[in-house]
């Protein structure tokens, strides 16, 4: 900044803030990464070693945290004694299925909503968005009763449909913003050249393809991380990873090692996906209200 020469920049206050910010950032980073770190490390620990903590006030004793022999037995027990392979497949099918439905139908609807004006469009929009924002528990009460009468409880199609309640409105809302940014003149030019309307629609798809791909991933993330729908609508036949992880907590015997390993299995893929779509994360998480 040019003004640096003109103004006295390093007042004591500024220096104090610099020092404060370094300390604050360090503390915050430790606080934010520690639970994830503990989860990762504990998943490789034997149960007794995981329970090893120093005496109260013994700050030097923190090193016992690293005092262990790594073992893979919790991961082994997840997949061999606990069927986590199947639960993972369930998670993948439910999340992926709803994401594909949401983005396919969503992009068609978003495109037409972006290109056409009609009476009541605002109301239609509000209905769509409020579906997405309704509390999950509240939505689940009637959905449970309906799905029960259709025999969809405990099935993957039921779960996919349940996830679509939040993913489809999300996709429509977000993708409309994308299509709004594509000028109509591109399609017009295509149509003047003799393309049909559908061909014109297809011709602008490559322009929004990166966004669409990112929001498929985001839809998967939302559905994968869901617990409530899976616990109630999916209970029985369609157990997903978060529910299976929760079920390792039993009143008499909490299998902490296995829980931490299951946590890693559930979290790691989503963290990697999150990094891949990092650019769209803010737009996605704020429903398109904030663009980075």
């Amino acid at each position, binding site marked *: 900044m040019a*003004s640096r020469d003109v103004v006295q920049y390093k007042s004591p206050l500024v220096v104090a*803030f610099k020092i404060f910010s370094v300390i604050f*950032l360090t503390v915050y*980073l430790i606080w934010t990464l520690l639970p994830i770190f503990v989860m990762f490390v504990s998943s490789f620990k034997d149960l007794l070693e995981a329970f090893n903590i120093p005496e109260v006030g013994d*700050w030097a004793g923190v090193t016992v945290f690293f005092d262990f022999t790594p073992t893979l037995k919790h991961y082994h027990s997840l997949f061999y004694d606990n069927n986590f392979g199947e639960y993972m497949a369930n998670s993948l099918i439910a999340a992926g299925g709803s994401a594909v439905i949401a983005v396919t139908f969503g992009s068609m609807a978003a495109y*037409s909503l972006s290109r056409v004006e009609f009476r009541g469009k605002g109301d239609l929009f*509000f209905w769509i968005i409020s579906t997405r924002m309704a509390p999950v*528990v509240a939505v689940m009460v009637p959905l449970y009763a309906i799905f029960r009468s259709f025999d969809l409880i405990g099935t993957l199609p039921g779960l996919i449909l349940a996830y679509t309640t939040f993913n489809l409105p999300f996709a429509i809302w977000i993708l409309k913003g994308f299509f709004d940014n594509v000028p109509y003149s591109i399609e017009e030019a295509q149509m003047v050249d003799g393309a049909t309307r559908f061909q014109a629609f297809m011709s602008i798809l490559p322009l929004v393809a990166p966004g669409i791909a990112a929001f498929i991933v985001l839809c998967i993330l939302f559905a994968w*991380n869901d617990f*409530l729908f899976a616990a109630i609508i999916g209970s029985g036949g369609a157990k997903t990873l978060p529910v299976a992880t929760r079920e390792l907590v039993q009143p008499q015997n909490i299998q902490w090692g296995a829980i931490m390993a299951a946590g890693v299995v559930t979290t790691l893929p989503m963290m990697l996906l999150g990094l891949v779509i990092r650019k769209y994360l803010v737009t996605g998480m704020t429903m398109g209200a904030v663009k980075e």
Partner: protein
Amino acid sequence: MTSGVTNVSVAQVPPGTSLFRARGTSSDIEARPITAVLPLPVRLNSAAPRRYYLYLMAPAIAVLAFISLYPFVWLIVMSLQDVGVGAGEWVGLKNYTRLFNDVRFLEGWVLLAQYSAMCLALQLSIGLLLAVIVNGARWEKFLVTALLMPMMMAPAVAGLVWLFLYNGTFGWYHWLFQSLGWLDSGSILSSTDTAMLAIVLVDVWQWTPLITLIALAGLKRVPQDQLEANMVDGASPLRNFFAITLPNLYPVLLIAIMLRFMDNFRFIDAALVLTGGGPADSTKILPIYLFEVAFKFFKLGRGAAIALTLLVVTIILGKLLVRIFEKPKSERV
């Protein structure tokens, strides 16, 4: 608008006469003098687009109707019935009148308000501070990536990890709190005084990064020339922050507040795993109470009445949020 005459007569049709209108065609043309209207290909303004767009919209609307509109009607019907595991019978407004005498229902609202207020206050202050610190820092990209990691974790899993960390015999955070002298004995989750704070901390841990990300996006749009001009005039950095940066951030922060507020209503996964509403109902925020009534005791009729009150409040909040969203583009950040 059927025959070939339409080509020229577009301008005489006032907007709104037809139910559908292709975007970017007639409205643009109307603005121009009639003499400037060139003949367009008939297809563009024929009735075809309207039907065509409707077809494209239909699948999504049909699915949404089945999973949103239909359940909503069902919810109202159920709230007037006594529904359990079997078929329901009509009870009129009894489910609603009972709510007014239900201490835990009223208490649930109070706790939900407290919970949301505490979460928001902490997230907003810490998140904003972090954004200011991280903005323009040397390792900004890396720092932001590290910060947003908790958001990727399933809330239920986050709850379980924190359950481990809070544990009264081998939890690391329990050890930390005790070593710092903040906690006497007994787990933070087992006391009615601290349990609420415990679930607030988990929410703060997981979602403060979102506020930071939003604030960071806002900070990038604060006009630098204003800041510099103000500095040249001798304003301190602190003064600069309150006079220019904060007012510029206001719209994004408002969005962040609304989003977090509604998510506090939406998600109870972590709290459900951590406390399940206990001890002694001290963390039984309304959605948890609803979960219990509907899916633990399977009183779906009463649950429907509670759900409806929760929905109404969310819809009002949503209406406010959408009003912020739909501001003209120029005002939006």
